[in-house]
């Protein structure tokens, strides 16, 4: 584990003196290695190590704990500070439905997360409307309809038409049927697909969402910074949902996405069932990334 590696790296650190850049270099190399193995983007890891170095240097070596543990605590606390806090906050609208837009790469878990979010909101006493705005993928509309049926939540869909107009009309439909939250499921898209990025931007422009969530797969590697920063540049993201955390991916993408967007990771997906959904806990994520 990282704690054992750091304890070994710092075994020669005497227990009287300060932490210096020189005496923590080797230990921090171990941290960098752990972060890269955990899929944290290499630039994000570099910046992080620099900030940990700044935090650690000059500190008195605490005599009561082993030096390696002291560095682990600084690293852990910095990671938690970077990725936190827990923030499942949703900007509820006082008049008119609250609109939530789900966006992200293909297969990241958007449609399933729409279902989970609907279930979560029903528990909170809300009346959500699911909107099947993925008119691209075969049976995407049906997929959302099956989830809606299982939850007893209505699904708005149209037989033809483009997503921006569909979503606009869906909000009108929500008002007519007294639904107070509208969840927009969109097609997966590449951040380098100009036409599709323009399309989701148009959906956002027309519907003025109160929340725009980037749905990101926890097993994503170095590329997480590329897609996250591109979505962040095109859409006023308000949060991130990290899915498939029930696997054993270390989840460094969480750190990368937070670092490049500055947006809170609000929720996590913990399975395929619609109740496998929770608020994001940065302390648990920090331990998982460090490994």
């Amino acid at each position: 584990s990282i704690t054992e590696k750091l304890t070994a790296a710092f075994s020669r650190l005497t227990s009287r003196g300060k932490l210096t850049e020189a005496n923590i270099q080797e230990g921090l190399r171990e941290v960098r290695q752990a972060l890269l193995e955990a899929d944290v983007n290499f630039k994000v890891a570099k910046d992080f190590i620099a900030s940990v170095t700044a935090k650690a240097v000059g500190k008195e070596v605490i005599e009561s704990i082993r030096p390696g543990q002291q560095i682990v605590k600084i690293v852990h606390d910095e990671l938690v500070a970077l990725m936190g806090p827990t923030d499942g906050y949703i900007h509820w609208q006082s008049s008119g439905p609250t609109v939530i837009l789900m966006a992200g790469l293909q297969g990241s878990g958007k449609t399933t997360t729409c279902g989970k979010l609907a279930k979560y909101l029903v528990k909170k006493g809300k009346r959500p409307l699911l909107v099947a705005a993925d008119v691209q993928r075969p049976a995407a509309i049906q997929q959302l309809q099956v989830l809606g049926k299982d939850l007893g939540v209505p699904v708005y869909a149209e037989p033809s038409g483009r997503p921006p107009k569909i979503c606009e009309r869906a909000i009108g439909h929500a008002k007519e049927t007294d639904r107070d939250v509208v969840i927009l499921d969109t097609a997966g898209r590449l951040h380098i697909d100009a036409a599709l990025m323009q399309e989701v931007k148009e959906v956002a422009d027309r519907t003025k969402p109160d929340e725009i969530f980037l749905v990101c797969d926890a097993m994503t590697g170095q590329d997480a910074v590329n897609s996250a920063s591109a979505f962040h540049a095109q859409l006023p993201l308000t949060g991130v949902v990290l899915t498939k955390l029930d696997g054993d991916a270390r989840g460094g993408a969480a750190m990368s996405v937070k670092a490049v967007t500055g947006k809170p990771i609000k929720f996590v997906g913990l399975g395929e069932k619609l109740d496998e959904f929770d608020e994001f806990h940065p302390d648990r994520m920090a331990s998982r990334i460090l490994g």
Partner: protein
Amino acid sequence: FAIGRKLDQDLIDELEEKLIAADMGPATATQIIDEVKAAYKARAFKDPNDVYVFLKDKIRALLGGPDAGGDIRFAATPPTVVLVVGVNGSGKTTSIAKLASILTKEKKKVLLAACDTFRAAAVEQLEIWSQRIGVEIIKAQTGADPAAVAFDAADAAVARKVDVLLVDTAGRLHTKENLMQELGKIQRVIKKKLPDAPHEVLLVLDATTGQNAIAQAKTFREVVDVTGLFLAKLDGTAKGGVVIGIRNEVGLPVKFVGVGETPDDVERFDPDAFAEALFE
């Protein structure tokens, strides 16, 4: 790459970062860069372009070989059975549509088996592809036992004198013991009907996946006889460098790459083109 750059330690450090950025992982990147450094010390390079050629050759050697980028390995007597597996959302169903399209163009008679009986509208999704491509499909209702559907499909493949049976399975995380057991059962049931089958087991891997792909490859290989990787979504900005680690640690070759969402967006894996794209 490195036009007008001086060949020095800075360039080599930057190269290591490029390899990591490509998802090769720190261990593989270090291993490759150590060889670059050794060659550099031995004055093997005259200019930065030599380093580029060295790296490309190294990567091509790591990923090449007779089983890489090959075709579906056809059975001695039809049907050839291809089992498609992988974690959730990696691109299995779409990749099957692509293979069905290639095979149909090659005048092969193709049958699809909708063995994802779990996920919402999974069967409908594959059924739409079967209609668009013009191939038949064996399916049951949601909740049916996937192994039973696989058995019926193998049966139908023989009865209808099909050339290739493509079996779609539900996405499953390799950490889910019971789901991995279910997959093992699907393979066993197919074997009951056709002892040499499945002739290919393709693990569909999302090119955006990081080092977890190695654990995926290892674990899937434990329950089914994975013969190769189908690297999907390579049309994005992710480089898919983790396939080198998989080749090193699990021995699996990349057979196909997915480069888009339509049935035509598939290519046979080309180690040269892959190595080239890594440095773009």
